[in-house]
């Protein structure tokens, strides 16, 4: 099963263009959608989760027209939204069983098995009788994960899933996603680069509603070899360096600024070549050094 997104656009009534002609092909497995806050990730996720209508474009999940056959999509959809609430006065076991019935898991025996397995997988079994209103943010997030995984969905959409999780919960959750990704399309939207680098076989970088780069993470990193340079400078020297070089990222370290620049050849003796990582890919794409933003600059003669 492949998810094909073709020319999807969305502009909100307030004039914000959230998506601009987004085209992606997402195969079975883990697919990362990486972008800063406000990039349009959640809008795309809501459209794919059948909660919002795009202004234009088409989306095909296998043989299903996602925009026009919503009931068919929902039969096989798992969705973990970025923000969601729960009924505070209901316990996790009862609400998860309710969702299991809504997802069509008939038969009390099978349903009990599924509910128990998911509550154990998400480490909520011991607190299953506790009211959801008393859950911490991380526990609520794990409950949302359990709901999303009900019925082994063929399309799983998870929007910023690790934001509220502690490190152990995060690893546990990402492992769960990996397992599901063996047989399903799993679309992981995040602004955390590590989530994508550790898990996803393919990824896209989105910013201001447009896809800047679609690639395999390892290959994208490979292609940056010899092009990322690092130097430690004083903060005062940064504006001048930004005028002279393509600075893609800066980090403060012990009162000094560590800069990464993108350059095809050695930029000077003060710089040393560094082994690139996915974060460098991300910043290179967002700053227009690689990907579609770069292609557009070249075609417009601004390079």
């Amino acid at each position, binding site marked *: 099963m492949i998810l094909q997104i073709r020319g999807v656009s969305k502009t909100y009534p307030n004039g914000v263009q959230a998506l601009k002609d987004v085209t992606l092909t997402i195969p079975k497995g883990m697919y990362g959608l990486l972008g800063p806050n406000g990039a349009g990730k959640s809008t795309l996720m809501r459209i794919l989760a059948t909660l919002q209508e795009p202004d234009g474009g088409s989306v095909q999940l296998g043989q299903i027209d996602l925009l026009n056959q919503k*009931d068919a999509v929902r039969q096989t959809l798992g*969705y973990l*939204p970025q923000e969601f*609430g729960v*009924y505070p*006065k209901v316990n996790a076991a009862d609400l998860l069983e309710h969702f299991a019935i*809504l*997802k069509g898991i*008939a038969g009390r025996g099978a349903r009990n098995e599924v509910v128990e397995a998911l509550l154990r997988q998400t480490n909520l079994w011991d607190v299953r009788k506790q009211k959801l209103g008393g859950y911490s943010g991380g526990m609520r997030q794990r409950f949302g994960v359990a709901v999303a995984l009900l019925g082994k969905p063929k399309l799983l959409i998870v929007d910023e899933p690790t934001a509220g999780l502690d490190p152990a919960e995060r690893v546990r959750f990402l492992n769960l996603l990996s397992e599901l990704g063996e047989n399903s399309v799993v679309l992981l939207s995040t602004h955390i680069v590590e989530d994508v680098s550790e898990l996803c076989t393919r990824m896209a970088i989105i910013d201001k509603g447009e896809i800047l780069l679609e690639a395999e993470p390892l290959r994208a990193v490979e292609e940056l070899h010899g092009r990322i340079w690092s130097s430690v400078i004083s903060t005062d020297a940064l504006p001048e360096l930004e005028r002279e070089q393509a600075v893609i990222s800066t980090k403060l370290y012990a009162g000094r600024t560590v800069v990464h620049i993108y350059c095809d050849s050695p930029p000077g003796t003060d710089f040393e070549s560094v082994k690139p990582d996915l974060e460098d890919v991300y910043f290179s794409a967002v700053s227009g050094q690689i990907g579609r933003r770069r292609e557009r600059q070249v075609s417009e003669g601004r390079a």
Partner: protein
Amino acid sequence: MKFREIFRFEFVYQSRRIYTWLYFAVLFIVAFQFNRTAGDGGPNVLSPYGNAQETILTCLLWVLIAPAVAGSAAARDVQTRMHPLIYTAPISKTDYLGGRFLAAFLLNALILLAVPLGTLAALYLPGREHAFAGPLRPAILLSSYGVLALPTAFAFTAVQFSVAALKRRPAFSYLGTVLILVVFGTAAAVIVNVLQMPALGQLLDPTCRLNVLVIMEATMTPFEMKTVLIGLETSVLANRALWICISLAILAFTHARIRLDQRAR
């Protein structure tokens, strides 16, 4: 299966809330006191008119205090922000709205059952100040509850549910109540008193208040008040039939208009 589950879950959820029982208790106590403090005529339950009057007044009280039941059923998912999880489940709009509405209506019907139960309690529990004579006619209680209370519950639940669902906020159920009471109540009063068209006014009054408490009060003889079953009067039955039709039309409109999605920002 899914309709049943949506109905079951909603019914159980709200029947475990304290406010549901609070509404029941208030109506029970009011109905009890109505009959305990009844004057020389004895408890209302012995007079069809007295019982109809009591039912209409307690229904008006219910209308004012209990819109939260329908409002919560209609818009709690949006209020608690659980709607992205519910709306992406493979459920139809009919199952979702139908299950929720039916649960709200039955809960309201059960809350209004406090009126005949309070009446019976006043009659049979010890401590009455006045003795009463004459047999209890179950038809009086049944017609008051079945013809006066239940259609009112259906109509107001439909309006409260629809307004809350369309506006996506439980509190809007109170606005629905005010709208229907003010718009139709005022219209009915104007039609009866100004246009002098009592038959039309009787039809439009959503609670039968005008018909029973004003027009019948003025036109019925004391003997009729003690013998005629108010719920089976033609004008009352016509009013109830009209309001059931109006309610069904409102529900159909709501079903057509509502979208189970995340409203665009």
